[in-house]
């Protein structure tokens, strides 16, 4: 009897504990996300790992002389240890080294450029700050290939690449740039570096703007030279932000596809992502091994990052109570430095747009005379009978384009709502259960999709969708987009929640306000702009996404970016340029409108 009582007591105690655990919304949220993220991120990862040892039908099975579906280490042996025809060197080692070089260089460029501008804007009395900080995020808002396309169009000449025609630099200014400047490692790293420099600007700028000025002031009082203060005080403080930037830029550059295709292929410069794409067509097993290598690198840097700084979340958060920061006077250098920056930003952010506009109205390439210009590619009809260089109607009169624009906007909005809301919930759970294993697991899992190359992520979801009949079309694209962009939203969600003091919610808890009401009435309004930024970043990223969706769209005409890629590959340059411009304008408009209406902005989304 006593034993039964004891047992019953224990069971009741356990039940009570479970009930208490589940009565906390943060626990329920974390548990739900643990399950969901395991299915949505770990399952794809495992299925990808399975693909690396599975022999696929067709070419792969015949080449391996094994039956389709069998399990073998053939792909590993072939990709890593085939010396005949230099196979492994060509398909893996050389592209791998190129990828490392380009990704490291891009990260350094992004940190240097973004960091220096962030320093100048936050810590000096630089002129035209408003313009500089306003335009600096443009390259990130624009699709990355924008700058790559511009680079080629602007600098190509008859001495390099195809050696057939001159770009604007050669034909207008008579300046012929060397091949290394226009194609290959240098421009790829530079373009990626410039594209991701806003990460550095936002992360480093956030720290610089809010850092405690006492340290620097103390050094100044002790008559420490300025350069020594920067070297010994400022740099160590921003080091975590620099490492964060390195992680983000390195992982993104490693899986970047369009930029190496545009600027590498003409000189036979291949990176892992371009090799992965071509292998995916004929030897998917080897392509998935390359994806695995990319993920391994991402995870390694993430771990290194965590080890160095102990916790990644610390440096993406705007922390500290700053005192009065003393601004450095640039004196006579002020105007020249500001003008130089403005020129660089105009070149990177504004001139490409003008170039696209120009390229979308000329009939024959390279001829910029008025007689060679037409608005037909925008508003013409019956073009197949007159020009026959692409579609039969101009893009603004083409229902396909409007449908694709509507679909892209709908998809971006859906992904933003799903990812943004999940981001807030993850943020809430992680912040409330800070320090627990569950919280840190969910936090890491929610960042994991960032490390998966988009193209491979799409490919895995495509093969998953063939097993799930309901998962197709819009639902498939929305799910993939939401998972892929969750890291952006969860970052800003976690950061925003960490800034909130627990007392704010506690007051509402004591008065018995239900959880959802606390979220909607208390927490959300306080951190509104940070949360909204968590919605904006997935929205913007989704609007200009290509690699993630390229295999999943029902047709190339479904969304604007796949339509653009199709036109570009067919060589329908004018239509391609017009659609590119349309995408950029729409993305900028969305960004501007949301910013004006709600105060949310991209920089808050990344930087917290």
């Amino acid at each position, binding site marked *: 009897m006593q034993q039964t009582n004891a047992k019953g007591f224990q069971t009741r105690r356990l039940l009570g504990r479970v009930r208490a655990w589940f009565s906390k919304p943060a626990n329920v949220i974390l548990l739900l996300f643990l399950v969901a993220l395991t299915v949505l991120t770990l399952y794809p990862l495992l299925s990808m790992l399975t693909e690396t040892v599975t022999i696929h039908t*067709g070419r792969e099975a015949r080449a391996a002389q094994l039956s389709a579906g069998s399990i073998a280490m053939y792909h590993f042996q072939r990709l890593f240890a085939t010396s005949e025809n230099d196979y492994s060197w*060509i398909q893996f080692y050389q592209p791998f080294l190129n990828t490392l070089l380009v990704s490291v260089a891009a990260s350094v460029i992004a940190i240097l450029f973004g960091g220096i501008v962030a320093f100048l804007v936050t810590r000096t009395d630089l002129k035209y700050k408003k313009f500089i900080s306003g335009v600096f995020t443009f390259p990130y808002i624009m699709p990355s290939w924008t700058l790559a396309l511009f680079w080629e169009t602007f600098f190509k000449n008859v001495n390099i690449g195809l050696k*057939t025609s001159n770009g604007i630099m050669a034909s207008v200014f008579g300046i012929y740039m060397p091949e290394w400047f226009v194609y290959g490692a240098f421009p790829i790293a530079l373009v990626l570096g410039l594209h991701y420099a806003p990460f550095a600007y936002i992360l480093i700028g956030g720290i610089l703007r809010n850092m405690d000025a006492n340290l620097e002031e103390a050094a100044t009082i002790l008559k420490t030279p300025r350069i020594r203060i920067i070297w010994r005080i400022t740099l160590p403080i921003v080091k975590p932000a620099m490492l964060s930037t390195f992680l983000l830029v390195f992982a993104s550059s490693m899986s970047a596809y369009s930029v190496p295709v545009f600027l590498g292929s*003409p000189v036979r410069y*291949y990176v892992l992502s371009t090799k992965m794409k071509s292998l995916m067509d004929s030897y998917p097993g080897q392509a998935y091994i390359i994806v695995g290598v990319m993920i391994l690198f991402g995870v390694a840097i993430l771990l290194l990052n965590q080890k160095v700084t102990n916790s990644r979340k610390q440096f993406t958060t705007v922390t500290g109570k700053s005192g009065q920061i003393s601004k450095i006077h640039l004196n006579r250098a002020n105007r020249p430095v500001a003008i130089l920056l403005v020129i660089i930003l105009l070149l990177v952010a504004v001139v490409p747009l003008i170039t696209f506009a120009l390229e979308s109205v000329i009939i*024959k*390439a390279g001829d910029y005379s008025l007689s060679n210009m037409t608005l037909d590619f925008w508003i013409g009809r019956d073009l197949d009978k007159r020009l026959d260089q692409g579609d039969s109607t101009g893009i603004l009169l083409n229902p396909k384009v409007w449908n694709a624009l509507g679909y892209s906007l709908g998809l971006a909005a859906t992904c933003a709502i799903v990812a943004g809301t999940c981001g807030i919930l993850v943020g809430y759970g992680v912040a409330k259960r800070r320090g627990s294993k569950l919280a840190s697991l969910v936090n890491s899992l929610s960042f994991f999709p960032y490390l998966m190359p988009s193209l491979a992520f799409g490919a895995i979801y495509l093969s998953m969708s063939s097993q799930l*009949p309901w998962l197709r079309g819009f639902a498939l694209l929305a799910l993939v987009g939401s998972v892929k962009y969750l890291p952006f939203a969860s970052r800003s969600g976690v950061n925003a929640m960490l800034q909130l003091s627990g007392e704010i919610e506690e007051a509402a808890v004591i008065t018995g306000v239900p959880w959802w009401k606390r979220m909607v009435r208390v927490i959300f309004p306080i951190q509104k702009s940070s949360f909204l930024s968590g919605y904006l970043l997935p929205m913007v990223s989704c609007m200009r996404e290509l690699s993630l969706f390229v295999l999943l769209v029902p*047709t190339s005409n479904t969304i604007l970016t796949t339509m653009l890629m199709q036109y570009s590959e067919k060589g*329908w340059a004018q239509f391609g340029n017009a659609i590119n411009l349309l995408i950029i304008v729409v993305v900028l408009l969305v960004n501007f409108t949301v910013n004006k209406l709600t105060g949310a902005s991209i920089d808050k989304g990344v930087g917290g």
Partner: protein
Amino acid sequence: MKKLLALLLTCMLVLSAIPALADVADDVAAGEALTHDELVEKALAETGTFVVYGNTSRIATAAEDFAALYNITTEANNLKDQEIYTKLRSENGNTAADMVMIQDGAQLTDAIDEGLVINFVPSAVKDVLDESDQQPALVHQYINKLFIYNNLGDDVPAIRNVWELTDPSMKGNVIFKNPESEKVNMNFLVMCTKEDWAAKLADAYKAWKGEDIDLGSYKNAGYKWVAEFLDNVTFGKSDTTIAEEVSQETAAGKIGLFVLSKLRSSSVLTDNLTVAQYDASAQGYTVEPFAGFMYPMYTMVNTKATRPYTGMLFIEYLMTQEGFQPWGKSIGAYSPNAAITVNDGDLTIDVWKDTLVMEDADYILESFEVEDFILQHCQK
């Protein structure tokens, strides 16, 4: 429990897939015996949007005309060949294509073996076409990629022998699409190493140099030509871009290997271009041993089609003079149907078959090592 559930689900999936496969195969078998009117009746009885994938941009025009003719809601999608094969393998249900128009005979052979697509030969063309154009897959048209050069300046590369393209002086002057990005280009290079073409290349070498070819470490003359050709080549993004670029006034001395039909585009300065074989024919010779290559574009019914009879009707339509019009209106597309003649100024399909390298799917499918060899020479 989990295993049981997984087994049950798998069984359900397999069971749900088998009838669909068998249904479409039965429909196609039945369709081959139907008259045109019966096929129309069956097609109109089907519901839902008729979806087409094709790796030719002009499929859109053909589909529009077809939709207007039969009042059938049609959605035509122009995709790359590889995208179509990927989608055929992974798509199910209403979004999948009912019918595909596709190139690359080697991959198509695999797709047929895997049961992804089924061949349909309309009764109207059964007695008209050669057997080789009907089986294993119906050929809708042949497309040729030819050596076409810029005719400006003093240094015009009016080639008479393809070995001229391997001369060190031609380095950087030859433009071709990367064989890794379009399989038909890879297929062409692979075919050059087949014994018959290798022998012809060896003869052509002797005709060019006046001496027997020294193969060195190469297995045959085909390997040697491919290696030396690729060493001189610069890769262009697309055939349209190559056509535009080679036609530039600043591109004297350049020669490209690209689709002849690109000459129709107004962005190409056609006057600056000369098709090597046109010039050769006018002077009574041919480019030795080939003036480029030619490959078929096939039409097939998707085994997952939800409108199989409409797919068959569309195939029947494409094989008519009217259905061929979107391609036949300009040069560079050749119907296997002799009743559909070529454009003025173009050469006939028989002439092209004699002067161009054609695909042999069986040889390509077994030539993995050749592809590795080609990839090696596509690298710097």
